[in-house]
């Protein structure tokens, strides 16, 4: 069995797919990839379906050794990647051979980055998903010594494919819609929400990202602690002390703090990848516009497989050239992990 063994982890790492859908009514956070667009990029690069799970890095990265031969892909925030000390391009596919060492480190853009295996990672599936949710003990927790196994028997995929870097890594505006609690806030707070600027803080995790209003503060609704209502990713929550946060993929299923508005689903990858210190504004859109944007981002995702491009590479830099079999001309590729 081919696998990728974790030798070292340099930051928080989890396994993520599209998350647990249908269990929020039982108190289960949906979870799933923080950047669903990046998850889809890796699936497109390897030719896999939208159900597959990938390794998600939050900064940091890690070191891996391969036991077998398989094609891998990277996506999301750009990191430095070295295969046996030789740099590889990000957001592309490559084949790793037995005993080769893969190093992923130094986030260059964004926050969340992904490593994809053919067919996704074969880890324990609970409530319809392989997503790691540490707080409730769901899904595998990748640690040093853990073997990431590909789910597919077809370990060889087209290598040297790449996707253009998406544009959402440098954003100045996040689009929002009003929600059921918006009316509880004062007119001036709602006006300021879209007039004034915010700064992304460094206080964030998979549950949410704290944001700081620049030169003002949203009034906490003192004495108006709500009965717990369901939460959706993107909700902008104002806590009892005025602390403001955008709730993200792994937010609690229900919460009692009011939410002034919600970031639209198609802008969630922007929030996921926004680095601390970034200044931005909120831009109010209608439900209809939000729906149009959702459709656009869905078609961008389904069109990813048409955007794949071969990497233009210098043959002298191609250390894996030695592994190609130029003579027989036949590479069946399936289920063959010994070279």
């Amino acid at each position: 069995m081919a696998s990728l063994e974790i030798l070292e982890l340099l930051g928080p790492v989890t396994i993520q797919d599209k998350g647990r859908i249908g269990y929020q009514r039982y108190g289960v956070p949906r979870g799933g990839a923080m950047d669903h667009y990046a998850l889809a990029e890796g699936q497109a690069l390897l030719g896999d379906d939208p159900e597959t799970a990938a390794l998600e890095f939050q900064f940091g990265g890690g070191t891996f050794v391969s036991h077998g031969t398989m094609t891998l892909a990277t996506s999301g925030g750009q990191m430095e990647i070295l295969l046996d000390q030789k740099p590889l391009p990000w957001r592309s596919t490559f084949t790793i051979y037995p005993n080769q060492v893969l190093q992923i480190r130094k986030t260059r853009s964004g926050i969340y980055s992904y490593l994809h295996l053919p067919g996704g990672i074969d880890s324990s599936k609970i409530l319809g998903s392989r997503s790691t949710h540490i707080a409730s003990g769901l899904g595998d927790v990748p640690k040093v010594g853990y073997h990431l196994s590909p789910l597919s028997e077809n370990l060889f995929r087209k290598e040297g494919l790449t996707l253009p870097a998406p544009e959402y890594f440098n954003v100045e505006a996040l689009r929002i819609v009003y929600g059921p609690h918006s009316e509880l806030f004062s007119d001036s707070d709602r006006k300021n929400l879209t007039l004034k600027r915010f700064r992304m803080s460094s206080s964030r995790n998979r549950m949410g990202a704290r944001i700081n209003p620049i030169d003002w503060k949203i009034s906490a609704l003192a004495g108006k602690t709500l009965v717990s209502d369901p939460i959706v990713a993107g909700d902008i929550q104002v806590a009892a002390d005025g602390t403001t946060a955008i709730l993200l993929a792994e937010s609690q299923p229900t919460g009692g703090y009011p939410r002034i508005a919600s970031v639209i689903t198609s802008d969630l990858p922007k929030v996921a990848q926004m680095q601390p210190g970034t200044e931005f504004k909120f831009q109010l859109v209608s439900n209809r516009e939000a729906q149009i944007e959702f459709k656009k981002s869905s078609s961008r995702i389904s069109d990813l497989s048409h955007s794949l491009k071969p990497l233009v590479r210098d043959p002298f830099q191609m250390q894996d050239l030695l592994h190609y079999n130029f003579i027989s001309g036949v590479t069946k590729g399936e289920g063959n992990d010994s070279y």
Partner: protein
Amino acid sequence: MVTFGDSYSIETNSRVLEFDRKLAIDGVPWVVEVVPAIRSILIRVDPLSIEMEKVESFLLELLSKPFSDKAMDHGRKFEIPVCYEGKFGPDLEYVATKSGLTKEKLIELHCSCNLRVACLGFAPGLSYLAQLPKEFKIPRKVSYNTTALPGSILVANRQTVFTATEIPTGWSIIGRSPIIGFRVDQSPHFLLQPGDEIRFYPISEEEYSNFNTAQMWDSYGIA
């Protein structure tokens, strides 16, 4: 999200549950997920399958249908054993003092209530049970640093919570049940559903350790 009231009441919560059932019965194809809560319900739709305007008119029409009283008691009934002794109920003394009752009276009162699973939330399988008598109007503790083990019975603000996983909490822990309402490896994964009715009964430490949880799921008719 549809809201049926400002706070918990049995009528408000019943309307949430009835709305949940209507949506389930009709099996609306563009509904991805429905999340009933204490006084509100979230309807998650697939924006690729339906226009938002139609969602609104569909929900308004469903809301205009008369509300049946039958929804008030449709839930299944469960009797759940709880050990209130020693390490199982570290805050029992504190709650007793606050409520002006002896520990024995407090346990008796807690076990005399028919409680409704108003909703599940916060963590997998965690149920919010309503409503306790006014003696349980205990504020949450300031710190959030206590760990409640799976099966813990917590109280605050006339509500009681029954946990199914380990959680951090600011509520008072008055007991623990050998019944864990969430199992990872077998379906159905959750013992309780919103609308179910619960009554607790006290057990000793010894009975706690001899309890067969798997049998308990069976005895409720849940294989």
